[in-house]
């Protein structure tokens, strides 16, 4: 064993009570960091997953219609200009735009849809719905509904549609049942339920009807049109930047999920900030603890350090003896701390669970979290040992032996 390690470990073992106390402190600190990260990351991941499970990352729609006064402003002063009503319109030349959008870096999937409001009627029951006319393969690569099917299959072809569990129960629909979709303008279509999904969102489950493009195009009188392009991006938090870029390129209005869910995002961010704050103070407390223990150790051992220097130990080795102590405290503390934190998290998870047995507080324990926490603890150990170690290395041997 190298000299520095030999002496460092012997010193740690010699001051057993001090060592154990500071190890306990480091462990508790690391476990708080691990537990908090696991919980908050888990919550955020599940929140995001829920939110993004029912909406595209970016939606491209035609720019709003602008009212155009018929008279030139010089001859007649218009007292009011009414805002133009926004009728459903198709994206101009959408196949070209789709191709262009798919090539933008960061965009992994794009789907052309026709989305509009309609009424679903079966017998005397009538419900307002949102009809999504989609190209099935493209749509599924943006929003994964196939894995959320409760009954039947995601078979959107011909007059086949899939609907949510909410709508199915409101209208008493089962697989193979027919329902009529009609618009206020008088168009209607008869479709067959091929599948029933549950996307975990009441509104979506009660309102969505996913049909083929052709059905929706006919229903909303947009032959061969597409009212919006829905996109999926590789990294969800890049959605805003990509949306801005797309708006500039295409002249369309681009809404990212981040804009649509601004409040959620603020919530997530402040949650992350408070997590970082708490961890920051934990790190400071742990660092101060290690530093104070080592400083006491250097003061207690200054005569011994003087002797080591007198018999020919280089100052650099003395420095490393104390750095190693700090590092070892950090490492050992982080191992027990990770275990403790994981245990807390698992225990907390069992405290509360949903009706279906899934936890209310999902925790996310990843190897990366443990690695990060351990690396942090070792860095804290080394960093807080720096001051005591330098003090030890700078001791004047003659002085230390006389007065130490």
């Amino acid at each position, binding site marked *: *064993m*190298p*000299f*520095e390690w*030999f002496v460092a470990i*012997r*010193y740690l*073992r*010699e001051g057993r009570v001090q060592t154990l106390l500071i190890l306990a402190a480091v462990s508790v600190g690391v476990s708080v960091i691990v537990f908090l990260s696991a919980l908050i990351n888990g919550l955020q991941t599940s929140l995001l997953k829920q939110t993004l499970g029912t909406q595209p990352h970016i939606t491209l729609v035609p720019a709003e219609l602008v009212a155009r006064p018929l008279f030139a402003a010089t001859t007649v002063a218009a007292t009011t200009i009414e805002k133009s009503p926004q009728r459903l319109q198709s994206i101009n030349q959408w196949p070209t735009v789709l191709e262009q959008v798919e090539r933008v870096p960061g965009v992994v999937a794009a789907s052309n849809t026709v989305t509009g409001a309609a009424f679903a009627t079966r017998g005397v029951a009538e419900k307002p719905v949102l009809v999504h006319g989609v190209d099935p393969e493209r749509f599924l690569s943006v929003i994964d509904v196939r894995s959320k099917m409760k009954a039947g299959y995601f078979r959107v072809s011909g007059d086949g549609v899939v609907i949510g569990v909410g709508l199915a129960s409101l209208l008493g629909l089962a697989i193979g049942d027919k329902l009529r979709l009609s618009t206020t303008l008088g168009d209607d279509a008869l479709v067959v339920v091929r599948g029933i999904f549950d996307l975990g969102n009441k509104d979506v489950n009660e309102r969505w009807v996913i049909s083929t493009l052709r059905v929706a195009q006919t229903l909303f009188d947009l032959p061969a049109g597409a009212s919006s392009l829905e996109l999926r991006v590789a990294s969800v938090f890049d959605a805003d930047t990509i949306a801005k870029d797309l708006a500039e390129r295409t002249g369309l209005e681009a809404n990212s999920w981040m804009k649509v869910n601004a409040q959620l995002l603020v919530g997530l961010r402040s949650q992350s900030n408070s997590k970082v704050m708490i961890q920051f103070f934990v790190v400071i407390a742990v660092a101060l603890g290690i530093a104070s223990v080592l400083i006491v150790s250097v003061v207690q051992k200054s*005569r*011994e350090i003087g*002797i*080591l*220097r*007198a*018999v*020919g*130990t*280089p*100052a650099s*080795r003395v420095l490393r003896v104390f750095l190693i102590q700090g590092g070892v405290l950090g490492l050992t503390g982080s191992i027990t701390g990770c275990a403790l934190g994981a245990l807390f998290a698992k225990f907390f998870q069992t405290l509360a669970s949903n009706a279906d047995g899934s936890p209310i507080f999902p925790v996310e324990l990843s190897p990366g979290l443990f690695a990060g926490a351990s690396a942090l603890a070792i860095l804290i150990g080394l960093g807080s040992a720096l001051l005591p170690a330098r003090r030890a290395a700078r001791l*004047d*041997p*003659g*002085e230390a*032996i*006389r007065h130490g």
Partner: protein
Amino acid sequence: MADAQPVLQVEQLVKEFGDGVVTRVLHGIDLQLQRGELVALIGPSGSGKSTLLNLIGLLDRPTSGRVILQGKDTRGLDDRALTQLRGETLGFVFQFHHLLPAFTAQENVMLPAYARAGQPSAAMRERAAEMLRAVGLAAKITTRITDLSGGQQQRVAIARALAHDPPLVLADEPTGNLDTASADEVFELMRRCNAERGTTFLVVTHDPRIAARCARVIEIVDGRIAR
């Protein structure tokens, strides 16, 4: 040639302490030790004995004058070089033994060599055990320092000082806190090493009985050599 060269040569050594009020502790000391000498350094408290020993031991730097060890001028050496020279040419025996309590007798004896090499070796361990046997502690090789008596601890300290065969051993009141029987034993051990190995000893002592048994006695009074 090596024998002709003094082990230690001290020239016009001056040491002052303090920044505002300067106290001159040593007033130009000249001193030479030849190989194989056993020298007692005596003097009343505050005469500058320990200061001189620290300067010779390279634990402190003189205000002026120079210390030449084995023909090597130590002026202008940096901390690293001083530490190395100290490790190679000097052995220390302190009054309160100054061993490391967290370690065993063997570990204490091998520590200087270990600290220099960075890695332990079988040869170091064997050498340490051999030294402990030589000072009569064959049964205590793996005993913790704190479990040894004062005389035994001082013998471990001597074993440590001699383990790397230094040409010069500096002893600061090595028998100061021992009873007379232990003190005799420890001094006898030093004299034996001196006779058998030709190691030069410079022993600071208050004990006139010890001084009387040394071949040469240097007395310091008020920072000057009185005899």
